[in-house]
């Protein structure tokens, strides 16, 4: 099956030779002043200017100033923050207080403080205006660590805009919200917060945690007190697709202050892959419910977005809301897409969907 994959942008490359030890580096071309970097620099051509180097025979699109991670044992170099990427995302923790049945990045309780450090170092040294995504686990699982992370960014004068995926539960603590909004004073932040159900029963069931609904809603209202930008996210599964309309009602009642309501197709990865049978509902079946939800959002002056859908499975009238959203290092186009005229507008499929639902469900999309 792997031979069928055409990944738009390769994110890992094999190392031929390197003198570097494992860790985070700024990739630099020769003859550059490297004194302002707080982490070591590396070049990919061995020459007299570079103390550290690696060589690779893979085609790659790394550029000067990109942040990379060297893993000598696996003979891999991975892009951490890449100027050629459509979006860059950093994982800051694997710990989480929700246990979503469709989690694409299942939690892990081990101590992982180093992720925050890597993330901070990466952002500080990337020095681009590009928005950087922060994800977990739950980034605010340990409030002190999260505050510390923002402090480190501030101490290094980083103003990189951040898109932070959080379940929002920690924001029920108003002092915490006050604290972080002060720390984000010079930084644009969009909070991506999930609401998967119109009521506690459904939402708590989707996220596998008691009282998550109450915490998240209270957190959202608290964020609004501080005028924060919020992108609300709903992952559509068998459990909630018939209630999308009610989620829109909940939004207009409780959080009309959000900037976008993102309706997201399941990413068949992590636990979502394990629970696929009981979670998956075909985009075809989702469409009429999505349409009702989006028209209610429109009615209330709330903007909507569709993420993670292959374009051909989205009804024509809903295409204005379509976003080509699958990260470029995890999407691909099956063979039957090769002749499609809309391919350049389409996000394609998750690479992780290979073997999961592609053969069974997607031949329908062939048009």
């Amino acid at each position, binding site marked *: 099956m792997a031979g069928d994959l055409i990944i738009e942008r390769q994110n890992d490359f094999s190392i031929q030779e390197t003198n570097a030890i494992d860790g985070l580096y700024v990739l630099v071309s020769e003859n550059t002043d490297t004194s302002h970097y707080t982490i070591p620099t590396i070049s990919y051509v061995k020459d007299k200017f570079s103390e550290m180097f690696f060589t690779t025979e893979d085609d790659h699109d790394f550029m000067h100033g990109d942040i990379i991670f060297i893993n000598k044992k696996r003979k891999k170099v991975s892009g951490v923050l890449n100027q050629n990427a459509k979006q860059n995302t950093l994982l800051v923790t694997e710990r989480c207080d929700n246990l979503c049945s469709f989690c694409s990045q299942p939690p892990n309780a081990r101590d992982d403080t180093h992720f925050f450090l890597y993330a901070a170092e990466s952002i500080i040294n990337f020095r681009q205006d590009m928005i950087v995504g922060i994800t977990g686990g739950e980034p605010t699982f340990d409030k002190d660590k999260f505050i510390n992370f923002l402090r480190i960014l501030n101490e290094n004068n980083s103003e990189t805009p951040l898109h932070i995926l959080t379940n929002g539960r920690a924001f029920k603590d108003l002092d915490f919200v006050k604290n972080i909004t002060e720390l984000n004073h010079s930084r644009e932040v969009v909070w991506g917060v999930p609401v998967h159900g*119109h009521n506690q029963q459904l939402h708590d069931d989707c996220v596998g945690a008691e009282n998550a609904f109450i915490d998240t809603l209270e957190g959202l209202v608290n964020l609004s007190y501080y005028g924060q930008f919020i992108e609300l996210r709903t992952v559509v599964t068998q459990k909630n697709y018939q209630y999308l309309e009610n989620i829109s009602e909940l939004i*207009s009642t*409780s959080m009309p202050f959000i900037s976008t309501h993102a309706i997201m197709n399941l990413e068949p990865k992590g636990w979502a892959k394990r629970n696929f049978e009981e979670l998956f509902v075909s985009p075809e079946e989702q469409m009429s419910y999505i349409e009702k939800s989006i028209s209610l959002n429109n009615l209330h002056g709330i903007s909507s977005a569709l993420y993670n859908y292959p374009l051909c499975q989205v009804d024509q009238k809903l295409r204005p809301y379509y976003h080509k959203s699958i990260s470029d290092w995890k999407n691909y186009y099956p063979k039957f897409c090769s002749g499609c005229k809309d391919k350049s507008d389409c996000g394609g499929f998750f690479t992780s969907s290979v073997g999961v639902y592609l053969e069974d469900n997607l031949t329908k999309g062939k048009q």
Partner: protein
Amino acid sequence: MTNLAKLPFNFKRINKDYLISNLAGQHQFMKEEDFIKVIDSDFCELDPKILASLESKSFLTPENQLGLREKIISSRLATRIYDSLSPPSLFMVVPTLRCDHDCNYCQVSRVDMDAQGYDLDEEHIDNIIKHIRFLSREFVKIEFQGGEPLVNFLFIKKFVSKAKTALKDKKLNFVIATALGPITDEIIKWISSEKIHLSISIDGIESIHNSNRPSKLFNSFKNTTQIIRKIRDSYPDIQLSALTTVTKLSLTSPENVIKPYIDLGFKELFIRPLSPYGFAVDTWKKLGYTAEEFFIFYEKVLDIAIDNDLIEYSALLHLNRIFKRSASHVDLKSPAGVLFGAVCFDYSGNIFGSDESRMLYKTTESKELILGHISDSPKDICTNENLTTILKDTFIELNPGCCDCAYNQFCGADPIYHLSSQGDLIGDKSKSFFCQIEMKMFDLIFEKYYTNSNYFKKFNEWLVI
């Protein structure tokens, strides 16, 4: 699952159905049998879809969420109040009270063309602009009102030129509310080049229009339609919107009221009931009607508008208030839209908090309506005692007659109207024509939206344009 509990709501019977609404500004239209199940707390008997809506909209809540719901509802209520108190964007300037029309219902008590002392002096222009700069935020709409503002065209021309320079950092729009009497080719050309919007009046076919809006100098209907055609042909870029004031005569023939709009290719119309200001107070017996009579007429007009793909603006303003919580319509605001909805710079140099305030002042000379003078410092307007006196009792959920009304989150407190009609800023709502009109308007809109699929479709289209 914990038990569900009811959160506070108001209700209103609309024919056989019920509308319930809460302080979060949400509503649910329901059949009587479902309404009774809610009242009786027979929640398990309800259709699961209705139950889901009621919980989503904070009409019902699991008992463990009372704190959360209180927070949600109070946050929504606070937002509504806050939105109503955001700085004004509409500024009305009255260059003259002189007018070439002789409308029986003239609400501003216009004066004859040769009357002396009714023009706004050009020396005030800089001060007015100073006030606008101080009071506004990003968006500024300056509307020239009359009398017939074009009678003092030189004032308008000078004002526009100065404002475009002095307020160039704002998003500036100009409107002239005109009956098109004194308009010349030269003025039309200027209006087009300055991108000024025209707000005109068409009350119906010739017999209705000329009876409502007579002029001693010309045939108003012929003049209006001729000029509209000329503008459409030669200057299609000029934005034209038209207003219909409804009199007893109009009620007899909804078809003939709407006909000129269809003939002239308008995409929208704006039906407005009469208000008891100016001459309309004295002529009410001759021109006025009951709210019931108005709505027999209005419902027919709305049907014709929908059939002819015309947007009826009055209904749209109500829909925007219901679904989008728009605070942009001056009449549907609580706290009231006085100053925070519009500011009016009168020909006399007085500053009022609404168009109606200056209308009422003209007939009563009540100094309490004046918020300041053009020559005052702009700061003083906001701290004027009259302003707080007028606004302090316009928090609608506290007003008798409004506090238990199902429409209170969508409606507005109109203190100037009630001062005019009842001599009291709050007024007895059971006798209020304003209240009767608004109640019936909301009844009609909710009923049409939820029981007539054609209306549902059209209203939704209007709302997302």
